[in-house]
């Protein structure tokens, strides 16, 4: 029953909608899809729990929908393009949902976006947070690179140079200039 661990589970704050979640979340997403029709929106609003029964959600999924726990919906197989339809049914803008998922107020979230968005620094990896992120990253990179390394070794090294991610900062920035 436990979810198969994937390399991308290491990305913090992210629920990748993969084939496994797609299967698990079929009911949530079909429920959200049904909200494209006005009659269905009205029926849902009239009696949410009753309406949800049609979609055979698990008790956890039902609870997440009723509580509008958007992150939990994603974790249990909902997809953002679908769950956004539930947000719209509630009369919320997309940015409102984004703010809710990040735990920020909409105002703060909007300000963050205007300021250039959330930085990727410190947000790349769960396993090697902040200081050690570069190291963990280098490990992950070299693993993925090993696959392509057989093709062209020299290319692999130029790749890391130009992207300036896996090498220590001072080195790559020096190279850039």
């Amino acid at each position: 029953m436990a979810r198969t661990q994937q390399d991308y589970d290491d990305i913090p704050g992210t629920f990748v909608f993969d084939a496994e979640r797609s299967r698990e979340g079929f009911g949530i997403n079909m429920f959200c899809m049904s909200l494209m029709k006005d009659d269905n929106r009205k029926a849902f609003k009239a009696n949410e729990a009753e309406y949800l029964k049609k979609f055979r959600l698990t008790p956890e999924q039902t609870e997440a929908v009723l509580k509008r726990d958007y992150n939990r919906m994603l974790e249990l197989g909902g997809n953002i393009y679908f769950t956004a339809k539930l947000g719209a049914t509630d009369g919320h803008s997309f940015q409102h949902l984004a703010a809710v998922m990040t735990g920020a107020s909409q105002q703060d979230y909007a300000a963050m976006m205007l300021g250039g968005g959330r930085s990727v620094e410190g947000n790349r990896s769960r396993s090697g947070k902040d200081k050690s992120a570069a190291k963990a990253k280098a490990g992950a990179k070299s693993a993925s690179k090993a696959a392509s390394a057989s093709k062209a070794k020299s290319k692999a090294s130029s790749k890391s140079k130009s992207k300036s991610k896996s090498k220590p900062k001072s080195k790559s920035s020096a190279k850039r200039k």
Partner: protein
Amino acid sequence: MAKIIAGIGSSHVPAIGAALDNGKTEEPYWKRVFSGFEKSKEWMAKTKPDVAIVVYNDHASAFSVEMIPTFALGCAAEFPPADEGWGPRPVPVVKGHPALAAHIAQSVILDEFDLTIVNKMEVDHGLTVPMNLLFGQPKDAWPCPVIPLAVNVVMYPPPTGHRCYMLGKALRRAVESYPEDLKVVIFGTGGLSHQISGPRAGLINSKWDKSFLDNLSKDPKKLTRIPHLEYMREAGAEGIEMVMWLIMRGALDDKVDEVYRFYTVPASNTAVGHIILENARKASGTRKVAGKSKRGSAGKSRQAAARKSIHRIASKGKR
């Protein structure tokens, strides 16, 4: 013979469509975005393509989770705008080019790309927003027929960047084996960096985006080796849709002229990226400059940028 003459990369942020539809284009926030496409509209008006192939993704409009085709080619005579919850966008019905589309389907499938054929489909903002950005807001009809190519980037895994690039090449072979003289442009849409789901929503990575655009011009093969994990980690969970730009790029010559680029942050939750690439008129022209060290020059964006007189609008350079 039909010929692909140029490729256009463009974000397809839904809020851009909403801004257009609700008359907000003059507000400072949106003006910053739309001003970046003024030159593009002029370019398009001059280029006058006979057909546009638009690579995009559907956002739970035409396809729910009942069917998730990896590559779906629109072969219908027309594609009405989808109702995405606020009524269909007030844009003209998109007219297809069924004859060329059928020819492409046949050619590409025999070229070992197993497309899904779609004979009835509505199209959402993923397709119509880039159309607006390049063609403006025509009242009655779009200036040319469109062949939609919908790519699954919603459920993981989308096709790999390499697969997309190779599909672009197959599309080109298909177009070039069509007997009628047609000028074709191809759009790659979506991106650039953004994440709209989960606690990490709001992620933007301008540095990565710029590198992507540089390589798209100069060294696209490098981009075909980027693993999905890197897209998601660096450009956000939804940033992975940038693989669609590689279909566009694959359909062009190895050497292209970058005639225009625009980048700004943000539109709603997303970094807006835009590029126009033309197949070089004289294949040998640019080669000489890049000659010495192909990899070296491609990696250094500033040097590459200086090489040509590219119209760049540095709008709100972030980080």
